[in-house]
């Protein structure tokens, strides 16, 4: 059984929320408790996936109140932040664990099938879920997808652990300085401010989103994120055939059978627009390009993103 650090106490009800959940609960797998919420009564169900545990499920704050009027919405705090546990082993943060948590949350909320929606690393979790459990996924939306799909292009180093990650910063680029375990442990708030304020939200007039994002980041800690960094991410099963030059996320994309939508900013400083475009091409999915958009359009361009999700879901042929 994994060693688990639980949040010390339940947080008070956040009365500033535009919409309170209709039901909440925990699933537990291998001693790790994961907190979920359910909203609304419509159909189909939308499963809003966790992302990198720098954030928790409040990164969907602009989607939940709107989409819950139209559909049934389920979300959960990814292990490592929010009200979910912080396991102390890297293996507990493998993408397969997030996918298994998602399946357990679907069970706990009596959800047979759902439209899965993921942002950044959450798009990777959604991709794996859609590829490996097609019977549970009606459709998939990938926002600012941060996935290794352009392997010959080193544009997405953030999802590979660089050997220098644990060493004292050696190069003087901002990434070399800040994306470093030593720096995180020494000045985690400084890292959060840099990452959220300068890399995630690059659009003007993002001060509220940046405040929110740093606040969510400060609900976890450096040790948790360093542990998570070594969790495996989109490693295909050994028996899957692959071409050496393919980005490994392509192998997952090729197994997706459901309709999909890709949303990507053309000024994404975390995961280049080409990543989303490549994913869309593989999925034969439309790509909604947000001109001037950064990495987290669901928070910075919520009306645009919410309407795109609404129209995508309405366009699915859903049997009751």
């Amino acid at each position, binding site marked *: 059984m994994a060693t688990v650090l639980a949040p010390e106490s339940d947080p008070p009800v956040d009365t500033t929320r535009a919409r309170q959940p209709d039901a909440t609960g925990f699933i537990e797998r291998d001693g790790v408790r994961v907190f979920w919420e359910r909203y609304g009564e419509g159909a189909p169900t939308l499963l809003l996936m966790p992302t990198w545990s720098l954030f928790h499920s409040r990164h969907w704050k602009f989607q939940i109140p709107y989409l819950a009027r139209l559909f049934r919405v389920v979300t959960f705090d990814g292990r490592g932040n929010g009200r979910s546990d912080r396991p102390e082993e890297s293996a507990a943060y493998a993408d397969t664990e997030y996918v298994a948590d998602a399946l357990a949350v679907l069970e706990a909320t009596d959800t047979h099938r759902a439209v899965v929606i993921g942002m950044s690393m959450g798009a990777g979790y959604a991709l794996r879920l859609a590829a490996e459990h097609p019977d549970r996924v009606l459709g998939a939306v990938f926002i600012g997808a941060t996935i290794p799909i352009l392997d010959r292009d080193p544009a997405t180093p953030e999802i590979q652990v660089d050997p220098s990650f644990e060493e004292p910063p050696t190069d003087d680029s901002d990434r070399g300085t800040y994306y470093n375990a030593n720096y995180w442990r020494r000045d985690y708030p400084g890292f959060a401010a840099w990452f959220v304020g300068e890399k995630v939200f690059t659009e*003007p*007039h993002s*001060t*509220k989103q940046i*405040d929110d994002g740093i606040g969510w980041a400060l609900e976890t800690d450096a040790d948790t994120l360093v542990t998570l960094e070594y969790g495996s991410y989109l490693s295909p099963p050994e028996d899957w055939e692959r071409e050496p030059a393919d980005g490994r996320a392509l192998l997952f994309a090729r197994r997706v059978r459901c309709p999909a939508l890709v949303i990507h900013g053309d000024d994404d400083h975390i995961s280049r627009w080409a990543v989303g475009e490549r994913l869309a091409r593989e999925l034969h999915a439309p790509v909604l390009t947000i001109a001037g958009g950064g990495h987290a359009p669901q928070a910075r361009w919520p009306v645009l993103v919410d309407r795109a999700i609404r129209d995508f879901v309405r366009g699915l042929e859903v049997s009751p």
Partner: protein
Amino acid sequence: MITSDRAPTRTDDSGRARLPDRSGYTTAGDGVRLAYDVYGSGEPTLLFLPSAPIVHSRQWKGQVPYFSRTHRVVTYDGRGNGLSDRPTTPEAYHDDLMTSDIASVMDATGTERAVLIGLCVDGVWRSIRLAAEHPERVLGIVAFGIGVPRIGPVQEHYKTAGAQFDDELPVYQGWGNYNRHIWTSDYERFARFFFTEITSEPHSTKAIEDATRWAVDGSVDAMLAEREAAFPWDLEGIEATVGNVRCPILLVHGTEDTCQRPERAQRLAELTGAPLVLVEGADHMIPGRHPVLANLLIRDFIRSLPEASNDGR
């Protein structure tokens, strides 16, 4: 005749959420041309007043698209900014003219009666004057950032900066930017300072940027002329005018308003018996900074008006 120091402009028109159904000009009594826009249909007509010449009608961008769905909406650029003429003589900004401009626009747009919605002195005091002098034309008033002169204290920084407005200062810091020499040499610097000061809540960068741009659309000479315009009212006259208003009024004021002190709102509430919504933590620019709150307050106020207000024009 009218002299304008630059051609009328109103940038920021391309990104509008709602385009006007009809636009036009009316000519005021002194020959100044005023540009208006009309949107939507549905009674009563809502007339959003300008805070000119510092900004133009885009100041209501957070209101126009929402209310155009359910009401006829009229806006206009006040003299000195936007697409309206920019006279540069103080006489052109006399209180009588600024008030009669409202009626001119109502006449030109076929608006017999309307709910008036305004911000600060240009929006609030002049709607009160029109309601007092032409009660048949004003169904109600929603007043933000209550700007009625003399009924309460002026912010100290206006007194200090106003006293040395024409002086050359060794340094121009803070409210020292409220100075003729900054206006004429770097008007954008003043505008950015001013709107940063009066939009002081966190997360106001867009509201500040918008207002600064609308200011720069305008005319420094118009601002200087307006500053020297006569305001021929003493406290007694103002209170008598306020006392003559019979239509329903709603007052909305931020507790942290750094342009108009909350005492003015409190006093106007006493004088009129109108309800006052004090918005905790809000500064002066509530319609731009808190559009949902402002819109719901306006909507509920309109719904509360007597049935006759909705019987057609």
